[in-house]
């Protein structure tokens, strides 16, 4: 996937997708070489070699520990993030559509978003215990804020000229929201989802460390504390992979939803 979408003028062509992929593979190779070099020079055991890490991954997989932890983490992450999406989008949209409601509650949402959410963990544990409910709640609280605030901003950024045009055609308020206001908010919404997904993943690990130790976060603590660095690296890489897959999928979605921005004749 490319970075910020280039605005290609008629005369300029983007570097071929093949070239970019090749360059990226080359860069990845460089990183692995650097890693191997670091593993060889740093005193033994501190940084595992790539080969040792692959070996550890194979061991964890054959024991089923990696799959088990991954499953636990994904359930926590999916539940929390899913709830954040289901609550955040309608709430943010409602705040933007009903101006008085938005103006009334937005300062409180901003205040809550500015409070470090880890501060709530003891309270959540007291209320919900140490199980999946508490974990999903920690993920939810982290992910829901950027989703609410970006949806809100997107609906507020509505194009008044387009709305007047829609009114002139006799469109109902509902039709205007569905066809003009909400699609206009989509780019903001996707940014909110990406931020929410990232914070949600961080909070998944935090939740697994602070409540009943489980999942990838639990393994991270276990291997980190016992200096089993090869296993520890496997977990870090697994977490990185989840983050990359989720945010890249959202970027693909964003690209699909904003094809109309791309210039160039059909």
């Amino acid at each position: 996937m490319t970075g910020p979408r280039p605005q290609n003028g008629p005369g300029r062509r983007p570097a071929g997708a093949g070239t970019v992929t090749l360059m990226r593979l080359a860069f990845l190779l460089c990183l692995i070489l650097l890693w191997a070099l670091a593993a060889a020079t740093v005193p033994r055991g501190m940084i595992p070699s790539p080969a040792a890490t692959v070996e550890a991954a194979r061991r964890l997989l054959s024991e089923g520990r990696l799959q088990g932890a991954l499953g636990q983490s994904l359930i926590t992450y999916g539940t929390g993030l899913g709830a954040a999406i289901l609550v955040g989008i309608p709430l943010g949209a409602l705040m933007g559509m009903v101006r008085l409601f938005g103006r009334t509650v937005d300062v409180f949402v901003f205040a809550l978003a500015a409070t470090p959410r880890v501060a709530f963990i003891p309270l959540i544990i007291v209320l919900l215990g140490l199980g999946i409910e508490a974990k999903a709640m920690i993920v939810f609280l982290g992910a829901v804020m950027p989703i609410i605030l970006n949806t809100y901003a997107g609906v507020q950024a509505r194009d008044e000229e387009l709305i007047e045009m829609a009114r002139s055609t006799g469109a109902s308020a509902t039709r205007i929201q569905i066809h003009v206001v909400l699609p206009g908010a989509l780019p903001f919404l996707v940014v909110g989802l990406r931020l929410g997904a990232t914070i949600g993943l961080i909070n998944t690990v935090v939740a697994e460390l602070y409540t009943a130790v489980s999942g990838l976060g639990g393994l991270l603590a276990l291997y980190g504390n016992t200096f089993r660095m090869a296993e520890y690296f496997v977990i870090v890489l697994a977490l990185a992979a989840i983050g990359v897959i989720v945010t890249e999928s959202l970027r693909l979605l964003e690209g699909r939803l904003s094809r109309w921005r791309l210039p160039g004749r059909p």
Partner: protein
Amino acid sequence: MTHVRLEQVSLAFGQGTDRMPALERVSLSLRRNEVVVVLGPSGCGKTTLLRLVAGLLPPDEGRVSVDDRPPRPGADAAMVFQSFRLIPWKSARENVAFALPHLPRAEARARADAYLDLVGLSRFAKSWPAQLSGGMRQRLALARALAAEPGILLMDEPFASLDAQSRELMQIELMRLMERRPATVLFVTHSVDEALIMADRILLMSPRPGRVVEELEVPFPRPRWEGDIRALPLYAELRRHLWDRLRDMVLNDPGSDFHGRR
């Protein structure tokens, strides 16, 4: 016979001490299927006048009526806006169909296709506005307004952003379309030539607050695209008269950049 009527309409924008009258006691009436052009300098309230007739804005004082009733947005008039106002994430066809909220989906689509064809955009039905040239966007905006088959067509400097050639072609195109399917047209411009070519009647407006200061019948025979009316002596005479009036208004308007120059 009277289709649209404004009686002593006044309207101001802003609150308190910032309150600025935009229109002051404007009265006018449009006969059915008449083309009336409103000519006036920038900021004299021409767009505001169209919004009043569209029913998008209520007057502070006076009365606006279409067939003796207050105008209802979407039911009486369709508007072509100055900056086109196309929905960027909708295709050309969807943009036109969007303006037909009262029709079932399939019917709206079929109607959209018919009007895209009318303005020569059939091949671009699936294109997004960003993929169209300025002239094509203008035709799309026109198709969207025409597709509603309105009794009243409100046009706000619709050709102002086109180059001289496209502009002339679009003027002819619009006159041809009006010949096929007549409508009452209220057309805003600040171009004297455009006014003389399009209008059955010209209303001259003064700046801040806007008032109708002169009314002028344009007697040239139709269709006007056959032969060049600009070659007629009367054309030159009317043009000179309108141009002088406009220039005087701008020079005597304290709010204008050209105030007091000679």
